[in-house]
């Protein structure tokens, strides 16, 4: 095939994505080969693969923030969420799949933080893909051993009177933290409240933002 794109523009006239014009690696070669074999064998289609990527890209912590804001403002929903987070979030219209989701409520007395010591299990259906640090060896090993030190690195320093609970995710069980509602937010709308809910606050390595 002639290489007629020395100016790094694709035939469509758009620049190549950065990862597209770096030297081909062995594992990238394998990804292309596996993908094409699955299509040739009729196991999947390029459209299905593109749709799956789009679905995953569309998931973001904003989804979880909606859930948290509703739990802060709707006592009946909060009760449902704490009883069965999969059912409660499904009822809100989120695609939770077969995930067994458990909501953990942070209070003045108890601070929950989530880890996956094995690898990277994460409530991806609600929050999107996990951040790199969540998958790091340091976070996975130290969070169970010295959670307060890890939290301090994230800027969260808790009083000694607060109990810290660490929850280890598995393939079959995922957690989302409902951060404590910040003070001074009594008059905010659900929409305004959702803007205070950060990704890290739903993992437990952060707190909800102040208004």
């Amino acid at each position, binding site marked *: *095939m002639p*290489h007629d794109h020395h100016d790094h523009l*694709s035939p469509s006239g758009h620049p*190549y*994505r*950065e*990862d*597209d*014009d*770096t*030297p*081909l*690696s062995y*594992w*990238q*070669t*394998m*990804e*292309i*080969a*596996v*993908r*094409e*074999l*699955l299509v040739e*064998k009729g*196991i*999947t289609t390029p459209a*299905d*693969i593109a749709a*799956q*990527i789009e679905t*995953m*890209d569309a998931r973001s912590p904003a989804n979880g923030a909606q859930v948290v804001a509703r739990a802060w403002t709707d006592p009946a929903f909060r009760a449902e969420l704490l009883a069965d987070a999969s059912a409660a979030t499904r009822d809100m219209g989120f695609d939770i799949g077969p995930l067994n989701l458990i909501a953990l409520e942070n209070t003045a007395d108890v601070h929950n933080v989530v880890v996956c010591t*094995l*690898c*990277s299990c994460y409530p991806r259906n609600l929050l999107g*893909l996990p*951040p*790199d*640090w969540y*998958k*790091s*060896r*340091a*976070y996975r*090993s*130290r969070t169970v051993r010295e959670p307060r030190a*890890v939290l301090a*690195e*994230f800027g969260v320093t808790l009083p000694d009177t607060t109990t810290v609970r660490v929850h280890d995710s598995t*393939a079959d069980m995922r957690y989302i933290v409902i951060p404590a509602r910040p003070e001074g937010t009594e008059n905010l709308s659900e929409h305004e409240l959702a803007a205070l809910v950060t990704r890290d606050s739903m993992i437990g390595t952060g707190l909800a933002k102040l208004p």
Partner: protein
Amino acid sequence: MGGDAAGPVPTDQHDFSLWEKRVDALMIIGSAKGYFTVDGLRRVLEDMGKDAFESMTYYERWIASVNQNLIEGGAYTTAELAEKMDEVAKRGATYGDAAQAT
């Protein structure tokens, strides 16, 4: 790993590249089609040994495991994979070139 002390939690973050998103999608699709479970994915990752965790990136380990599971599940054979990888590698020197089937 294995009780070794770990340093501070790294704060670097990278955007996932297209090939990584594709690996993620292949994992979801492969397991949705019943070729393997997340336990199967884990089993191959555990078998890789310590070196793989030092030298390979997250999605490099994942494609290796997804591939192994798909072969074991009968989706295609090792020979078919080898032939296809050969063909792909000849398409060009970059991911962009190689990812375009001729």
